[in-house]
């Protein structure tokens, strides 16, 4: 391919796809390289939770903006990802949880999240499906969820409409040159003036192509879904400890998450569930919404999530490599992705992003060759 794109994005999850989309709409010629099909990794299999109650304080302003974008997906994305905006409840069953919840809700509230601590009885008024043992709950009226598996089709349509060159089933293997960049793929070299690394847990090996060492911890998150059941809940439910996310989709299935860990290996790409971990997760779900116990588990699966050393995003320019950027490891990345991608796109387009990015300089290990590439 002899074209020189204005921007190459490596990684077709929601981060990469969103950056590609916004830059293309601003007039750039964009190529999106994805080794599989877009949004089939974590972006297609996560719990879809759009909650502020698990968002880190520093990320609350970003999540608030992103929530507004999700609620308006038909406007800017143009296609449906099944977003449901509803109340969110974070439950406390023990004294310890009550303490944790109260403190954290207050801190999040200070950061702008409209979270109120309510009694167990009040919580049951909002969510009749709750069991009786809730002490207190964090209540947030700006909450909800999207349907992760709809992400791929929605973004595909938007990307195609925006004229992005969608290079799926194309494996990026390295960066042969910079300025302009030549990305080596199994279908030949792709040339571009700018580069965004958005490969999920693989941003670590990808940044290594540029001589940059960014350690990424790989989480293996488990999820479970029931078959369609009669309505058992109407809010998005979590627990103070963070070990539960729970929602029922309009079509009736209930998705159970909460970051319970399975097993997995980034190098082989293989992952799987740990049975006791699934059982623990399901127990919490049934503890929160007892009627769930009537349902049957239809499917469980795992997905990779990236985490930096300080559990904050890796979003911004790559130090020492002009016109190279990274976008990933956001922590509850799906929730905030559209807004974070919008900010990075502003940066790539030469504007001052309307909010601070998260430059990765803070996270880098010193490499043996301290001299950076110019």
């Amino acid at each position, binding site marked *: 391919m002899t074209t020189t794109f204005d921007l190459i994005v490596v990684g077709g999850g929601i981060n990469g796809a969103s950056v590609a989309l916004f830059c293309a709409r601003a007039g750039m010629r964009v190529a999106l390289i994805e080794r599989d*099909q877009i949004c*089939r990794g974590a972006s*297609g299999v996560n719990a879809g939770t759009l909650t502020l109650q*698990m968002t*880190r*304080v520093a990320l609350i302003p970003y999540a608030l903006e992103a929530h507004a974008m999700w609620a308006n997906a038909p406007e800017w994305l143009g296609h449906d990802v099944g977003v449901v905006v509803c109340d969110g409840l974070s439950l406390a*069953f*023990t004294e*310890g949880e009550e303490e*944790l919840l109260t403190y*954290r809700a207050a*801190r999040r509230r200070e950061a702008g999240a409209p979270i109120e601590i309510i009694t167990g009885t009040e919580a049951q008024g909002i969510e009749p499906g709750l069991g009786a*043992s809730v002490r207190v709950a964090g209540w947030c009226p700006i909450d909800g969820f999207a349907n992760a*598996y*709809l992400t*791929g*089709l929605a973004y*595909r*349509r938007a990307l195609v409409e925006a004229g992005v060159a969608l290079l799926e089933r194309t494996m990026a293997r390295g960066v042969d040159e910079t300025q302009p960049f030549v990305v080596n793929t199994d279908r030949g070299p792709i040339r571009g003036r700018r580069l965004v690394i958005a490969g999920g847990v693989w941003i670590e090996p990808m940044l290594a192509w540029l001589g940059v060492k960014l350690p990424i911890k790989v989480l293996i998150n488990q999820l479970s879904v*029931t*078959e*369609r059941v009669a309505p058992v809940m109407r809010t998005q439910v979590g627990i103070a*400890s*963070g*070990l539960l996310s729970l929602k029922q989709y309009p*079509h009736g299935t209930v998705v159970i998450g909460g970051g319970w860990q399975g097993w997995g290996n980034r190098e082989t790409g*293989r992952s*799987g*569930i*740990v*049975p006791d971990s*699934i*059982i*623990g997760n*399901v*127990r*919490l*779900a*049934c*503890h929160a919404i007892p009627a*769930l*116990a*009537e*349902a*049957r*588990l*239809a*499917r*469980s*699966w795992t997905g990779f999530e990236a985490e930096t050393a*300080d*559990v904050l995003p890796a979003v911004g320019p790559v130090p020492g490599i002009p016109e190279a950027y990274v976008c990933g490891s956001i922590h509850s990345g799906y929730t905030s992705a559209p807004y974070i991608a919008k900010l990075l796109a502003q940066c790539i387009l030469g504007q001052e992003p309307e909010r601070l990015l998260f430059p990765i300089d803070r996270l880098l290990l010193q490499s043996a060759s301290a001299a950076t590439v110019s």
Partner: protein
Amino acid sequence: MVVETDLVVVGAGPAGTSAALAAANAGLGVILIDEAREAGGQVYRAPARTLTAAIKTRDRDAAAGVRLRAALDRSSVRFERGLRVWSIGERFRTDTVGPEGVRTFKAPRLIAAGGAFERTVPFPGWTLPGVMGLAAATILLKSEAMLPGRRVVIAGCGPLLAAVAAKVSGGGGDVAAVIDMASRRQWASVMLQLATRFNLLREGAGWVLGLARRRVPIHFASTIRRIDEADGLLSVEIGPVDGKGRARPGRSSLINDVDAVAVGHGLVPGVEITRLAGAAHTYDRLRGGWVPVLDAMGRTTIEGLYAAGDGCGIRGALSAATAGTLAGLAAAGDAGALDPDTLASKSEPQLKEAVRLDRFSAAVSELLALRPGQVADIAPDTVVCRCEDVRRADIDAAIADGAADVNQLKHFTRCGMGPCQGRMCGDVVGELVALHAGSREAAGAWTPRPPLRPVPLADLIGSYSYNDMPIPKPVPL
């Protein structure tokens, strides 16, 4: 609490039971697991508990089932009945749920013998109550001593057509018609290939003669075009098909006032265990679809994992028993319980038998294999995925939208996301996607995921104390 043993066998049909017996006889500790109350799988399925006295042991399969269960009872195999396997993990942790809740087993070797399930290629009306599988009709007749209906149409392909028709007739039911996709010529060719299998031929001839005596119309090279329902009864429209299952121009006819239709278009190997374990598979149209890659003894490409029976490819009950025995011997040999010479001498006759049976089973497998023309013919408004009401038109639209394989199709349409986990529609969906993707390999197969069957959450959670739940380190605020 995890129960440890030398070998776990999943599935107690002819393959699994033979495997368990062979391994136990060689000295391995064996746990045999099945969802059902009794061993036998589907082909040798035990009659209902209260009907055992009424078994006609002239029925070959019934007699074989009795012998199988007796041999199992006499053996040292520990048969765990009524347990549903939901997860299989690292070498080889086997998680089950049953009447007493969660039970977990572990062994360094596992034999997957989960059998096959029936395929029905969709047509308008196939989801109407009163329409059931051929295997379902067989279960009612043999295990429940019950007619599927008073006036029945029996349709599809394979030897089961005549068997079911004969049993319905013999039981006093009215077989309105038998609708066979195969032509007389295809049957003649099958007969030739089965020429030395006197028992099979005699049995088959008996069925057909019985039907002729009762003047049951048999329509060859025909298929059901649609079924409609009115006033609680079904009317069945049939029409001619060619060798590939495509509708031929020709008069269709209507069979009215039917209260049950038994229809089945072959069998699909159940490969969920070997797929979940990451073993290599290959697409084998003759043997029913995706099958695990095996050596002659039944070893998969995953160390310690073996497979046998119709779950590895449709070959029938006798081949299943032979394959099971070989896998059981292999497991025993690999575990060091049999020295190489003994393993070789015990395996030799079984290996020869397997080769011999393979020749004959191919003829029947051909009758049961998926007919691409039949899939191509599925009308746009026909439901393909029963669980999620996904129609052919929805699938075609998703493919036009860019769905390049069955898993992407699943994300676009929910096809395959229902509780049957893609079993009822999977083979047909693969064929539909292959029309555009170019091959079944390109179309792919559903990503394997646990649970292997839906499990009630109530059974999984058991009894616990909230305070015992693990408290993680809180995520930084």
